[in-house]
C-alpha cells in the first residue's frame, strides 16, 4: 500500500488487573487500517476484539506497544492536533439501549458535539446539520425523532442515532463494536448497507467487530477480515480468502461449526473435530500457539514450543499465525483426533 495507513497497531499488549492477577487480554497485536477501508475483527467472547476496538478509538490506553494515527503515535499528539485526532476516531457501541443518554432528546444528543466543537455557526446551521445527519442515517423525516427521547425509539432507530452522533465530528474511522448484534435480524442488513453507503459517501474507514462470521463475510466482502483468538490475531487477509480458503485451524473450526440457514447444506456440512471443547482461561493461556490443545492438526514440539507470528503461508494469500503452515510443514491431522472427543 503506497498510501499512509490511517491507524497502525504495532506490537500492542493490554493487560487487566483482576484481584492480584494480571490478565493478558491482548498480546502482540499488529494491525493496519488504510483510509476508507473496512476491516472486520472476528472472534469468540474473550478474544480481545472489543479491547482492540477501544484502544483504536482512544478509549483505553495500551499497556505496551504503539498505536499510530497517520504515522504518529497517539500520545505524541498535543493541543489542537490531539483534539482533531480524537474526533477522527469514533465508536458505535453494541447495546442500543445503553448507548444513548436517557436524559436528552435526540436533537440534544446530536447538538452537543456540534456545538462543543464549533462544527456549525449559528442556530440555523445547527438545525440544518442535524436534519442532514438524521437523513444520512435514514431516519426520515427527521421530525419523527428529533424531539424524542431514546426510550421512545426502537433498537434499530437508536443504533442509527448512535451512528449519526459519531458522524457529527466528521470522523475518519468508526469502530462499530457488535453494532448490529442486538438489532432484529430483519433490519440488520439495512443498517449494514447504510454503513457501507456512509463509507462511500463520507470517506470513513470502518472497523467492524463481530462474533458472527456470516455477517462479517457479508459486510467485509471485498475487504479484509482479521480472526482473533485469546488476545492474538491468528489470521488476517482478504475476506474471500479467509472465509473461502481458510488457513488457520481455528478459522477452519469456526467456519465448519457455523450452522447455515439452508437445511440441506447445513446438515451435510463437514464438521471439524476439536481435541478439546474447553476454551482455556485467559489466566492460563497455553504455551506456544494458544490453540494447540484443541487443534486437530497439532504438531508436538512445534505448536507448543514457540509463539507463532503472522506470516505468509504457501497456497494462501492471507497472513496466518500457524507454525506448521508458515514453516511449510503443512497440516496433517493429529492421530489422537480420530479418537472420541475429550469430555468438556
Amino acid at each position: 500500500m503506497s498510501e499512509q495507513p490511517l491507524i497502525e497497531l504495532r506490537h500492542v499488549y493490554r493487560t487487566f488487573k483482576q484481584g492480584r492477577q494480571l490478565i493478558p487480554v491482548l498480546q502482540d497485536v499488529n494491525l493496519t487500517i488504510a483510509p476508507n477501508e473496512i476491516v472486520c475483527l472476528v472472534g469468540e467472547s474473550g478474544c480481545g476484539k472489543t479491547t482492540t476496538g477501544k484502544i483504536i478509538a482512544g478509549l483505553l490506553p495500551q499497556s505496551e506497544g504503539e498505536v499510530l494515527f497517520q504515522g504518529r503515535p497517539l500520545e505524541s499528539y498535543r493541543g489542537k492536533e490531539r483534539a482533531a485526532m480524537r474526533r477522527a476516531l469514533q465508536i458505535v457501541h453494541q447495546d442500543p439501549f445503553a448507548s444513548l443518554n436517557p436524559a436528552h432528546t435526540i436533537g440534544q444528543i446530536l447538538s452537543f458535539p456540534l456545538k462543543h466543537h464549533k462544527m456549525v455557526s449559528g442556530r440555523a446551521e445547527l438545525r440544518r446539520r442535524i436534519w442532514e445527519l438524521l437523513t444520512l442515517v435514514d431516519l426520515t423525516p427527521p421530525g419523527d425523532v428529533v424531539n424524542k427521547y431514546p426510550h421512545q425509539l426502537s433498537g434499530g432507530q437508536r443504533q442509527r442515532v448512535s451512528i449519526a452522533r459519531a458522524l457529527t465530528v466528521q470522523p475518519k474511522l468508526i469502530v462499530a463494536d457488535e453494532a448490529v448484534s442486538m438489532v432484529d435480524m430483519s433490519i440488520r442488513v439495512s443498517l449494514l448497507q447504510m454503513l457501507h453507503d456512509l463509507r462511500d459517501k463520507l470517506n470513513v474507514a470502518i472497523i467492524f467487530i463481530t462474533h458472527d462470521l456470516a455477517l462479517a463475510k457479508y459486510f467485509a466482502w471485498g475487504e479484509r477480515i482479521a480472526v482473533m483468538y485469546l488476545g492474538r490475531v491468528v489470521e488476517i487477509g482478504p475476506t474471500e480468502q479467509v472465509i473461502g480458503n481458510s488457513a488457520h485451524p481455528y478459522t477452519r473450526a469456526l467456519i465448519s461449526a457455523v450452522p447455515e440457514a439452508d437445511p440441506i447444506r447445513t446438515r451435510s456440512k463437514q464438521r471439524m473435530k476439536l481435541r478439546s471443547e474447553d476454551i482455556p482461561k485467559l489466566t492460563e493461556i497455553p504455551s506456544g500457539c494458544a490453540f494447540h490443545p484443541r487443534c486437530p492438526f497439532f504438531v508436538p514440539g512445534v505448536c507448543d514450543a514457540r509463539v507463532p507470528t503472522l506470516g505468509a503461508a504457501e497456497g494462501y494469500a492471507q497472513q496466518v499465525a500457524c507454525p506448521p503452515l508458515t514453516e511449510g510443514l503443512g497440516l496433517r491431522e493429529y492421530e489422537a483426533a480420530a479418537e472420541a472427543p475429550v469430555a468438556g
Partner: protein
Amino acid sequence: MAQNDVVMSVRDLSVNYLTERGPLQAVNRISFELHQGETLALMGESGCGKSTLVMALMRLLPSNARVPNGEIHYTTRDGRVIDVLKMSKGKLRAFRWSECAMVFQGALNALNPVIRVRDMFYDTGRAHGMGSKDAVRERALELFRLVRLDPERVFNAYPHELSGGMRQRVLIALGLLLDPQVVILDEPTTAVDILTQRTIIDVLMAIRDKLGFSIIFISHDLAVAAEMADTVATMYAGEIVEIGPVNEMFYRPHHGYTLGLLEAIPSLAAEAEELVSIPGSPPDLIEPPPGCKFHERCPFAVERCSREVPPLVDVDETHRVACFEADRVIAKARETIQA
C-alpha cells in the same frame, strides 16, 4: 384422535397481557400439533410472542397474563389425554418436568446461584418421587456424560463455577432428568460462542435421537432451525403465519415474512450476496393494524391485506400459510432461492 402419535395439540390459543394502555395481544389464535419425536422450531423476532407461547404451554405465564381462549391437549405415554389449561395445581406440578420439561437460556441466570448443581437435581427428583438420592445421582451422572460434561466435577459445582456453555448443558441434563416426552428449548444457542453452539447442537441432536423425545424450540436464529428442526413455524406479531416441514419452509416459502427473513440472512457458503431487509418495524400489539398484521411491511401486500385477516390455509398436507398473495410469494421465492 386422528393421528396416534400426536403428543401435544394446541388449538386456537390466545394470550393477552394486561397493560396500562389496554390488553396486549401477545399470542393470537395459534394452533399446531407436535408429534412424537418431532422437532418443531418457532421462528420469529423479539416481541413476536414465541416466548409467551411456550410459557403458556407450561402454564408459567406471569400474573398479568390472561388466556381468553384456546386448548392445550397433551397425550401421555399410556394414551391418556390431558387438558393442560384445566389441570389442578397439584396435577400441574406433577405434569411439569416429568411430562414436559423446559431448557431455559443458560447464559442468563437460570440456575439458583446459592445452591450446588446436585441440590437442584435432588430437589427435582424428590418433587417427583424419583426415590433415593442415589438414583437421582446415577441418572444425573449418566446424563452429564451424554451432554459431554465431566460428571463428578459438575455435579458438585456451584453454577458460577461453570462457563456459559457448561451451564447450558447442565440445564439440558436437568431437563431430561425425568425422561419427559416433550422438551421445550428457549433460545438454546443464543449468547454462547460459535464452537460452544456447535457442541450444544450436536449434543441435543444426539440425545434426541437416543431418547426419542419431542422438541419445541424457539430461536431467532434461522440457521439453527435449519439444522435441527423437522417442522418450522414462523411467528409474526403473535400469530403463526406459516408452518411446514423444514425443507418446504426454507426452499418454498409461501409467506412474505418467511421469505423476507430468508432474504435478510447472510450465508457463509455463498459468494458475494444481495441481501434485503424488511422495511419498517413490528406493529404495536395493543392496537394492532387491521387485516394482515404484516401488510405494512410486506412488498406483496395488496389492498385486501389491510382489510381482511388472512386465514391459515393448507398449501399441502403438512404446509400451511396465512397469506392472500402466497402465489406471488412462492413465484418470487423460486427466482431468488435455489435449493
